[in-house]
């Protein structure tokens, strides 16, 4: 079973072997509101730790999605680009944003656990 970690920028990451799956948290979707546009990265693109990797737009505004871990993109989730609203309905399941091959597992380990993230959200409601 893969382990799930969270970033302060409201991304979640699950790791299987050296491939991480990244998406945005339910809390993030609640802050964003109705999601109407998603842009995911193409395979082969390199991303830095906390570098911009994808775009999510709600009716209100556009926001960047960052990769909490450095690596090389192996797949962007085209199905959420076709159906952006699905990110609202299943943000932490089928509506992941991208997968990447990571270099340094230490970056994953340093992210927040579920409990730490929930506490972080409570302390930083906006």
């Amino acid at each position, binding site marked *: 079973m893969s382990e799930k970690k969270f970033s302060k920028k409201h991304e979640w990451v699950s790791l299987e072997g050296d491939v991480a799956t990244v998406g945005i948290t339910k809390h993030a979707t609640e802050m964003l509101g109705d999601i109407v*546009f998603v842009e995911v990265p193409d395979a082969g693109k390199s991303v830095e730790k906390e570098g911009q990797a994808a775009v999510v737009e709600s009716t209100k505004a556009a926001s960047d999605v960052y990769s909490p871990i450095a690596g090389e993109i192996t797949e962007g989730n085209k199905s959420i680009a076709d159906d952006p609203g699905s990110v609202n309905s299943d943000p932490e399941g089928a509506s992941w944003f991208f997968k990447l091959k990571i270099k340094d597992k230490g970056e994953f380990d340093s992210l927040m656990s579920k409990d730490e993230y929930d506490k972080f959200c409570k302390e930083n409601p906006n």
Partner: protein
Amino acid sequence: METQKTALYNYHKNLGAKFVPFAGYEMPIQYKDGIVKEHISTRTHAGFFDVSHMGQFFLEGDETLTEALEKIIPADLKSLKINHSKYSFLLNNDGGIIDDLIVTKTEKGFCIILNAACKENDIKQISQFLKKNHKYLLNNDLSLIALQGPKSVEILEKLVQGVSKLKFMTGNNFNYDGENLYITRSGYTGEDGFEISIPNKKVEKLIDFLISNKVKPIGLGARDTLRLEAGLCLYGHDLNEQINPIEANLKWAIAKKRKEVGGFNGWEKIKNLLINGSDKIRVGIKPDGKIIARESTKIYSSDDNEIGFVTSGTFGPSVNAPVAMGYVKSKFAEVGTTIKLEVRGKKYGGKISQLPFYKKSYVK
């Protein structure tokens, strides 16, 4: 300046509103349902909007008041019948739009609804033309509620008999619970509906009634998507003092007689533009695919010359596609012209589109 609140602030809070600062007021941007659901429920049933932050400006005077206002407003106020309304503007000396507004003829003079962010300056600009015998008042004891959507008429008729007889852009006084309401058949969503001017002390009771009739509260977020789909301008975005009504593609809102005779701020400039056309003009824009071209997005011709910029852009829930408005060089303004939109450094295709994006259903 301290942030102001409308009489319904606590009511909004109890309805689960998320607030944003807007034009010096703390206003709901959305409620629990979110922008898309609020938008759709306005189009399919009815929604109410607290627009009490807008200025309700009352003027009283004789025919010299009409003459004074016609110097800054290019509507045919002399011919405006009592209880009839017109969409118009305040113009500066260069024909630039100081504000866009709705002016209604009343028995004693006029009532003008002003944008919240502009109202202080508007009154300064208008009062320059007023004489000692003209009275004016920005009435802060009144709330303004917009009720919009296809079910608005049958719902409001239950509470205030006779409103169903009002035609679009007309109004009248009605009695409600011992108080006078001034109700116009108007709005800014592309739907049939009403704007209700009501004493602050009665507004919660009116909203109780609307909510008991399944009318949803609608925030500024859905107000923006609704008005944009209806092709209507938002002051401070699509209109400002550097833009005149010809460029804004709003020449229909200048009365025919006034175009010919003039006598208002900026007429020389506007007369010239009416004959020769303007260099740039406001158009509707439909981006290809799902890309959203927001305010300030640069617009390019198909051969990559910069030709304009977006002034409003969002996702249109009823159109089920992104929609935008902006200004382009006039030769690129024809409906169907292929353009490019630069979003996050990349160019995406789009087309000049007819306005409105969503067909209106006003009761004429």
